[in-house]
């Protein structure tokens, strides 16, 4: 027994030193370096004042500046989006924020891969790192960690976090750290510069050269239903949206209509509206290919000031359906016809 106690004691010593050393490496990342982690503090500090939440992955995070949304809708909003966020991650954040804010509306962004993405093929470790970095409640942190991060990735997750710590140390020592807390942006992640997308001459040439995964993952569907059920339980109105993608991407990629049908199915099942802004008739005018996008999947920072007003127009419209085409194929061909 004495042998065993000594062994346990020695393991604890090693664990203690390992934890201290790791904490020393990682500390600056959490203290100064990571925007997502600062976000957790900001949300905590500002809790109790939001009546609208945006729940999204990177597309929604880049498309909606809550300050513009507040101006457009006269609300007080916060963007909970996290790059590569899973439906389960969204559920955890929604649960946390619905408990401490008088929320009456949730904008639930559903991008083309929000339901088909899986850990192995899509969000993987990086999504988990953002998610865990943006979670400040230990119970939710553990909940996510145990449910979503497979043991085979634990070491990689630790490495990645340490690597971010080392990078932050370097920035810190070089005096390159930007202000960490962005109270005023309400979750929006600024800084994406526009870059021009390929023009119409590429549309026919690259038509459907890429293919989307269209089959929704069972787990994602489960947690999407959980999000919607949670909102219904709290009496919160939900609006589902898909943010604009570059027109070139809509031409070059096959499968958007299949994804649309899945999203519309969810919309009908729960009786919540779904607006896909890629079907909007004035998409090309509002979001010019030359200046509206950061990359094919994301709007740039300037567009994130415009999109909330577009959203507000749709939400306040008497006949929102009239503003949209009914399918992707129809939308891209009609818009091409309309091009000068």
């Amino acid at each position, binding site marked *: 027994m004495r042998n065993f106690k*000594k*062994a346990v*004691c*020695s393991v604890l*010593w090693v664990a203690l030193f390992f934890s201290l050393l790791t904490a020393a490496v990682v500390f600056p990342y959490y203290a100064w370096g990571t925007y997502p982690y600062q976000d957790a503090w900001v949300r905590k500090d500002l809790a109790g004042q939001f009546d609208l939440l945006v729940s999204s992955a990177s597309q929604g995070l880049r498309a909606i500046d809550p300050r513009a949304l507040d101006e457009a809708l006269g609300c007080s909003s916060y963007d909970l989006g996290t790059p590569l966020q899973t439906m389960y991650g969204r559920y955890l954040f929604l649960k946390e924020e619905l408990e401490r804010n008088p929320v009456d509306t949730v904008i639930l962004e559903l991008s083309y891969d929000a339901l088909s993405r899986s850990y192995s093929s899509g969000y993987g470790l990086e999504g988990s790192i953002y998610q865990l970095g943006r979670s400040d409640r230990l119970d939710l942190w553990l909940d996510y960690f145990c449910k979503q991060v497979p043991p085979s990735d634990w070491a*990689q997750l630790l490495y990645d976090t340490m*690597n971010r710590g080392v990078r932050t140390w370097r920035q810190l020592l070089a005096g390159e750290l930007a202000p960490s807390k962005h109270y005023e942006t309400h979750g929006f992640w600024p800084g994406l510069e526009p870059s021009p997308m390929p023009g119409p001459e590429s549309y026919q040439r690259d038509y459907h050269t890429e293919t989307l995964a269209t089959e929704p993952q069972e787990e994602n569907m489960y947690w999407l239903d959980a999000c919607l059920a949670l909102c219904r339980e709290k009496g919160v109105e939900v609006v589902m949206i898909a943010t604009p993608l570059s027109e070139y991407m809509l031409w070059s990629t096959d499968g958007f209509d299949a994804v649309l049908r899945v999203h519309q199915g969810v919309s009908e099942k729960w009786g919540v509206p779904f607006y896909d802004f890629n079907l909007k008739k004035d998409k090309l005018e509002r979001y010019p290919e030359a200046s509206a996008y950061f990359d094919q999947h994301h709007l740039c920072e300037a567009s994130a000031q415009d999109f909330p007003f577009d959203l507000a127009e749709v939400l306040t419209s008497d006949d929102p359906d009239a503003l949209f085409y009914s399918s992707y194929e129809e939308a891209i061909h009609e818009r091409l016809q309309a091009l000068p």
Partner: protein
Amino acid sequence: MSITSLAFVAFSIALAALYFLVPKRLQWVALLLFSTAFYLLSGPRSWIYLAVTALSAYACARRMGRVSQGQKAYFKTHKELTREEKSALRQKNTRKKRLALAAVLVLNFGILCVFKYAHFAIDQLNYLMGLFGGFRLDNSFSLLAPLGISFYTFQTMGYLIDVYWEKVEPEKNFFKVLLFTSFFPQVTQGPINAYSQLAGQLFQPHSFSWENFAAGGQRMVWGFFKKLALADTLAPCVAAVFENYAQYTGPAVLVGVFFYSVQIYADFSGYMDIMCGLCQVLGIRLEENFLRPYFSKSIAEYWRRWHITLGAWFKNYIYYPIAVSKWNTRLGKWARGRLGKAFAQALPASIALVAVWLVTGVWHGASWAYIAWGGVNGLFIIVSLWLEPLYQWARGKLRVREEAFGWRLFQVARTYLLVCFIKVLPEVGTLSQGLGLWRQAFRSWGPPTYGDLFPYGLAFSSLLMVLLATGLLLFVSLLQRKGPVRAWFGKAPMPLRAFALAVLLVLIVYFGVPASGNGGGFMYAQF
């Protein structure tokens, strides 16, 4: 299951827990269960071949044991037998044992040859038939060799030969033979243990010991550090140089060769440290496979200090049987009268060495490059054996003091460079590519910049890590010359030891985890 994964760490913890929780008489059963599980995880079909080896060895050993016992019993009850009658009976029984042994050796080495050398043999046949315009055999089929087939075959056949020589008693329990064959810490890359050394330890009970736990755990961490933080970090650099040596400057190629020598040592000895450490936690001592090999003063000494157990196997089961065989002894006697005493002594040994190095080359890989590699190693050793009288004379004339530090340093440096030269030959691809790499090493010389030396994009932090780890390895090796480093480390205060291990663990995570996919597993697992 990857040895460097968290799954393996969990596997080891589960084994250690079960091993010390079950009744002591069942500890070996726990080892067998875990070994079987470990092996089955690598592919159930592979396990069948391993079981065939164990079963054939068990049956053959039992058969030989019965023959030996029957002979002893017969002699005991028939004391009236004359010397000639006894001799005739012995010969008859030896023939029976030899027949059984030969059958099982052919079976097992046959399986090994099919898996490892079928493609190579068909290639050679096709080449020969092509010279005469003959047909070509299809060589497009794929054969996935069972995990560790070279290692477990050699170890188990060693046991069988020992039974034949009556050095060990045949094991009566098949499952114990199965455990000896499949014991997972050694099945993939050795060490190749003798039955007499390992079996007793596997089957005898062990109590949990703090000393073993601490020393074994420390050794495992050190092994993970060598493998993950050093060998795997270097793997892409070495691969870049070996695959594209013609694009690099001489200094970059030489740095690549140096990195390779560090990588292969850290990789193989790292594995040994992990497995020997795990076994030490369980109270089992595996044979050591390394004894500071890069400090050797000759090629022969290097091979006594690198992959020691393989060398011992070849020495016991190939070198000695040939060196002391009747025909070889007669050849020595014949040479004594014609070529002089020194040559007469060297001739039988040289013949045995040729056989050993031919087999060593073939064992390492099915290619002419490996055969040539074995040949070059053997050539260096045989030539130094034959020229030893000349060296002695020259050293005497030059008044070289054998124990002088400068002379020893020269010998170590010379041997290291020779070892690097030989080691690299088969690793680049073909023999001509290996020689091409060495030609490139002496081209495009000039004042090198960082980019010239490390043109494959080695991050500066990784280079610092490599230099630090290599320096640490060198420092530990130098300390080992003074005494047992692990024992000294074990006497340090617990917080200091824990801190050192924690530093290693942090380095393993930071440098090793991103590099862990680079090596594509352990280098010696391919053999």
